């Protein structure tokens, strides 16, 4: 194991390379361009391929085709660029291609801003393109996790033949932290069972396509929904901090979860029983963490860099309205630890309002 000092975006790229990524295509957009820049030289070093696509649309379809031919392939983007990839990602899903996309979230609607945001939560976890699907969504909250999640993402995608989204954000992407790099994985694209390599005359050729034409659609639907249920059942991941005796439990992922963790510590120093559930997979959402909550919890509080409290809906579904669900939404600003502790106090003294903001 090697210790490196890297920016989050670089760690994500290096983690992917060590996880076997040998194809990258992307288009520049802040705050993710370091992934593209890193891949431009790193793929050469490891004998892989890099293409700076003419657009996000081109890049996402390059990754589709590279995966179809057996390569472990990654693309990455942010904001409007991630929106442009949605059509292509839907094709990955319907063709069952284990490709990986990273979104280094920035804040805003349309072009938006280059600073961090968590306002594309819905886009990331509810589908994004057309059709019935969720991606497997991993939410790192440190440079180390950017590396680790990119490292494991291909095997996870291949386990289900379903794409993985790494939903990072501008803060994690841009910050420097030391991290431990895992060993290089061996991967042989010729051994990938789905890979197109050319079929000689007389043997059965392969077609990698979206689902609709080549097979019985009812059968396809059955297998697909079985897969989605299996992912929901087996892949829920989360971290808990001081939850068992907590009166107020924060729910936060990514950069917000680091502030919420600070708030739990500060609150506890002041005698408030605060806890944190940090979803690590955003889809499947870690419902199991909420099923285990004690009845004494007075409130669940999501902490989100958006205006509408997008994740609150999933918290309500997971907790079945057993206790009030609030959101501290800070739009384009990173929340303050003190602000979260004050909000928790207002939940405890009954002055907090459950606001319906959408």
């Amino acid at each position, binding site marked *: 194991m090697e210790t490196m000092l890297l920016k989050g975006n670089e760690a994500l790229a290096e983690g992917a390379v060590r996880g076997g990524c040998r*194809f990258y*295509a992307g288009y520049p957009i802040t705050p993710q361009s370091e992934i593209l820049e890193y891949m431009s030289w790193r793929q050469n070093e490891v004998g892989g*391929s890099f*293409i700076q*696509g*003419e*657009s996000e*649309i*081109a*890049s996402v*379809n*390059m*990754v*589709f*085709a*590279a995966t*179809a*031919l*057996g*390569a472990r*392939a990654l693309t990455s983007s942010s904001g409007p660029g991630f929106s442009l990839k949605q*059509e*292509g990602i839907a*094709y990955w899903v319907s*063709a069952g291609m284990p490709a990986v996309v990273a979104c280094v979230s920035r804040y805003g609607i349309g072009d938006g801003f280059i600073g961090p945001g968590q306002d594309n939560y819905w886009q990331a976890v509810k589908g994004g393109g057309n059709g019935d699907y969720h991606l497997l969504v991993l939410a790192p909250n440190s440079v180390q996790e950017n590396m680790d999640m990119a490292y494991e993402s291909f095997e996870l995608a291949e386990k289900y033949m379903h794409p993985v989204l790494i939903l990072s954000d501008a803060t994690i992407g841009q910050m420097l932290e030391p991290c431990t790099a895992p060993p290089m994985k061996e991967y042989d*694209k010729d051994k990938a069972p789905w890979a*197109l*390599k*050319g*079929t*000689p*005359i*007389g043997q*059965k*050729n*392969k*077609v*990698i*396509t*979206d689902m609709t034409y*080549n097979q019985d659609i009812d059968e396809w639907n059955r297998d697909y929904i079985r897969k989605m249920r299996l992912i929901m059942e087996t892949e829920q991941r989360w971290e808990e901090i001081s939850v068992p005796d907590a009166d107020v439990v924060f729910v936060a992922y990514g950069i917000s979860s680091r502030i919420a963790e600070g708030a739990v510590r500060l609150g506890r120093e002041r005698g408030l029983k605060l806890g944190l559930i940090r979803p690590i997979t955003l889809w499947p959402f870690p419902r199991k963490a909420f099923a285990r909550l004690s009845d004494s919890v007075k409130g669940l509080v999501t902490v989100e860099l958006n205006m509408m409290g997008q994740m609150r809906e999933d918290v309500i579904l997971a907790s079945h309205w057993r206790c009030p669900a609030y959101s501290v939404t800070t739009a384009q600003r990173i929340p303050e630890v003190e602000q979260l502790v004050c909000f928790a106090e207002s939940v405890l003294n009954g002055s907090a309002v459950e606001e319906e903001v959408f």
Partner: protein
Amino acid sequence: MAKSAPSIMKCENMFCAGCGHSLFDRLLGEVLTEMDIVGESISCSDIGCNHMYQYSMAVDTVVPPHGKMGAAMAAMKKVRPDKYIFSIAGDGGAYAIGLGETLSAATRNDNVTFFVMNNTVYAMTGGQMAPTTMPGQYSSSSIKGRTAEEHGRTFDVVKLMQNLEIAYLARCTVTNAAEMAKTKRCIKKALEKQRDGKGFSLVEVLVPCPTNWGLTPPEAMRHIENDLVPYLPLGEYIDR
């Protein structure tokens, strides 16, 4: 055309009677077989009537979204540089929704091959006007006939690409045995350019769509000869 179909052609095909796509596919199948490169080929389908070659030709195939073949083939060639990478594309796919990707592949001189089936309409969706629809041509979205004033000028790939540094650019058709023989030579030459690492090749094939043109198959062939070819001359435009 050879007397019997090459063995990679499965007998069933889903095209209408008199469809030009099936004639082209047959010629391509023959070339792949004669060059003995079926096992070395990976095709990239468009979405449109053209994509039905998948059901009649036994060759490995990727189907990206409609029009995105230029991007997909760039990646395919990077991942498997030793394979022949080609696309059977529609004119709508290659020249309208996918023009950016097609042109980017050409300007990079990617070592891949486009076979573009120009039937002057979006056939699969019911014969709407495409960039290639001819002046005066009726279509389901230009019911009084296309005019440059109302709908813009007709697209001509030769005008667009003739000054690019690409390996091969040709236009041909399938209206009779002599033209089919020429088309077969163009197909072969394009694939040879790729084999020799010369770069981007594009062969546009003027093909009939009797169904959406509202013509019988023989009338559709005559329409190509009389109305398309004078406006879109056949020939090899780039060969380096």
